[in-house]
């Protein structure tokens, strides 16, 4: 199971981390939890003492026939993916690796998912269990290493996307899947409006689509599955072959589109939302459900437009928006505060990273 390199790169520093948290608790000193720091651009600044997770590394267990891997939070995605590669398995939600420095803990805490998300599921969908250092300085285990587990509240999935505000994730168990047998990418020249209509039509059919984006001039599709289904879909959909590296570049935000100097916004909208008439450049991902936007338009106007279609907007450019995450309705915010107070009563974990109130 574990290769030599994995053992070399394993180090359990949980005890040290727990001590640091207990110290911080006794002095009521906020902590800024940090993995590879690759997502520093996302969210609000945290005024706290850095807590570095990168010494807590290694794959704790991985049995390919169980489709489950457990690793410490500081493990880089690159190392984790390499271990899965060796068994022809993958993290289906395709989290960005950001120059190789993104850690497992940071990826789960921020809940980022790549191009396959609408078809395979999100980061939180693949979380089976976590170990967490709590706001009472205890190192606890929630969920587990089994596919199905409904004992107690689902705190491990709650941790996904909570940006470290509810506790320190020290270990994560994830469901993994075999890689598809065949993968083909296509490029079909057509305007965005038509692409969105086509995606909505194809979405209702059993096609093996696992990636769908529109770069302004063409719809690019990724097809994954068995030989039969992928080749038949290629025949049916036509178009030109497209290099598969597109999906990596999209996931890592390395495409030319992302070089535009204007602020970057991520708009999350319902699947069948038509083109959004907003100033700036757009790049459609997730089969229409995620729209990247480079625009100087005002935060308020943008939020109003996305809210009207049932979506929300997050600013991906550090320091640009007053509140990078979409503001919450008052009632919901109250329960966020109460949950934060319940799990982190002294407010020491990444205070304000997501919202000033939590």
């Amino acid at each position, binding site marked *: 199971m574990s290769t030599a390199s994995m053992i070399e790169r394993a180090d359990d520093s949980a005890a040290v981390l727990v001590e640091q948290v207990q110290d911080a608790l006794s002095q009521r000193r906020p902590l800024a939890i940090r993995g590879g720091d690759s997502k520093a651009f996302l969210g609000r600044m945290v005024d706290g003492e850095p807590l570095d997770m990168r010494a807590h590394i290694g794959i704790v267990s991985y049995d390919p026939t169980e489709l489950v891997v457990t690793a410490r939070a500081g493990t880089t995605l690159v190392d984790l993916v390499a271990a899965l590669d060796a068994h022809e398995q993958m993290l289906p939600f395709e989290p960005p690796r950001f120059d190789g420095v993104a850690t497992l803990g940071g990826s789960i805490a921020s*809940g980022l998912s790549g191009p396959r998300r609408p078809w395979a599921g999100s980061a939180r969908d693949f979380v089976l269990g976590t170990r967490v250092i709590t706001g009472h300085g205890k190192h606890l285990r929630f969920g587990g290493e089994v596919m199905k587990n*409904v004992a107690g*509240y689902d705190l491990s999935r709650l941790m996904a996307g909570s940006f470290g505000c509810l506790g320190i994730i020290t270990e994560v168990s994830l469901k993994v899947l*075999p890689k598809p047998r065949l993968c083909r990418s296509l490029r079909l020249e057509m305007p965005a409006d038509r692409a969105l209509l086509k995606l909505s039509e194809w979405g209702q059919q059993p096609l093996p689509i696992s990636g769908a984006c529109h770069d302004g001039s063409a719809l690019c599709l990724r097809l994954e599955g068995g030989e039969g289904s992928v080749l038949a879909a290629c025949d049916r959909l036509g178009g030109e072959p497209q290099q598969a590296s597109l999906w990596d570049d999209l996931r890592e935000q390395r495409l030319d589109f992302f070089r535009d100097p204007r602020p970057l916004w991520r708009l999350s909208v319902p699947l069948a939302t038509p083109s959004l008439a907003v100033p700036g450049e757009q790049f459609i991902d997730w089969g229409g459900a995620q729209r990247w936007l480079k625009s100087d338009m005002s935060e308020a106007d943008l939020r109003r437009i996305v809210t009207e279609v049932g979506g929300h907007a997050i600013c991906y450019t550090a320091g640009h928006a007053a509140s990078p995450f979409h503001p919450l309705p008052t009632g919901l915010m109250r329960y966020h505060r109460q949950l934060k107070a319940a799990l982190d009563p002294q407010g020491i974990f990444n205070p304000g990273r997501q919202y000033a109130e939590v």
Partner: protein
Amino acid sequence: MNILYDERVDGELPRADKAILLAELRQRIPDLKLLHSAEDLRPYECDGLSAYRTTPMLVALPERLEQVATLLKVCHAQKIPVVPRGAGTGLSGGALPLEQGVLLVMAKFNRILEINPQGRFARVQPGVRNLAISQAAAPHELYYAPDPSSQIACSIGGNVAENAGGVHCLKYGLTVHNLLKVEILTVEGERLTLGSDALDSPGFDLLALFTGSEGMLGVVTEVTVKLLPKPQVAKVLLAAFDSVEKAGAAVADIIAAGIVPGGLEMMDNLSIRAAEDFIHAGYPVDAEAILLCELDGVEADVHDDCERVRHVLEKAGATEVRLARDEVERAKFWAGRKNAFPAVGRISPDYYCMDGTIPKRQLPAVLRGIKDFSDEYGLRVANVFHAGDGNMHPLILFDANAPGELERAEELGAKILELCVAVGGSITGEHGVGREKINSMCVQFNADELTVFHAVKAAFDPSGLLNPGKNIPTLHRCAEFGGMHVHAGKLPFPELERF
């Protein structure tokens, strides 16, 4: 230890005045249907865990959201516990009423509000039956994936509250993976929207937290589920084995071959025979174990995968591998499995269904353990198993009329769950904790973990009036349970005082 609400260890409940409550409810919600005579209350004494019954103080059957909101506000003001209930098919006593509480039945909320094929979602009221969603989506060639065996009866609200699974969850996920949004009312009657019509929403993932929370954090009043395109074809292979070990190893081999079947189920000899007697599915009754492996998707892929799986099964030592010839035979193969519970019900006066999960590699060891317990307690156990995702349903056969047998069955069940925890699994994969497994929670979680659960509960329901006593045991209960239940000289809750 009895699982009925016990104020001594589960916490004191407020004393309710039924007359005052009735008067205020009648005045504030004149058109709300209320049941309060002994005769009318009887059908609501239990859910699917029928060995345990409590008569609720009264039953409310609202039909409109405002009725639910006002009912919750009135109960909150008068400090009256409220137990939500959907269709009452739950197997863990999650909807078991309280003598001093109102049973809030959501079954009348049974309207499908919207089927949206372009957006691939369905928006429904919580009392809509699971199967009704797929039926309503069928004209668009879409369906709702999670398919609990109780799908003709159970409600989607109950599915959300239990995070229900089905035979297809290895490939298509549990309820939590197939939800976009739920509307809830808090214990105070405040409306909240969790999730959204988009694939994600800002803030903490309260949708995930609420899924599987057993009606403890809020009342589900509307559910938006994802719809999927129907697979073009589905084929099913039936493989017979002369030992459960070989069948278990074959499951791992299928996964190792890079195949994720739509469904992968195992049955042992006792369940095979019971199902065959009942359904005549064509099962090989001499086999020690059978596997049902369903492959679904696009025709060409399914064909190739069937060949691959057949090869794997043969290599793993299957004594026979059969591909269902047509839809009729496929439906028959599944009917045997889906009716395994009632089939076992026919060979024994009563049965008790367990729901533990384990890492798949532990299957042979756990089955041996179950066999030993079965001998020790003198009760037969039939094993039905969602093999693909390690979720076991041992069915303990007993006779409730024979003195002491129910207690023995429960003890045996608790032993099996402890074994699941010991091998790295969980006491419940999909049926929930409810009241049934309240003591077993003390085995799976330590006092600090339980304390965190209580804190989460308090963040949404500080007065503890929503479904009290379910899902999370008090530390007192665990201390008492631990005292009776010392493992190898180690107390699970050494820090707590004993009663």
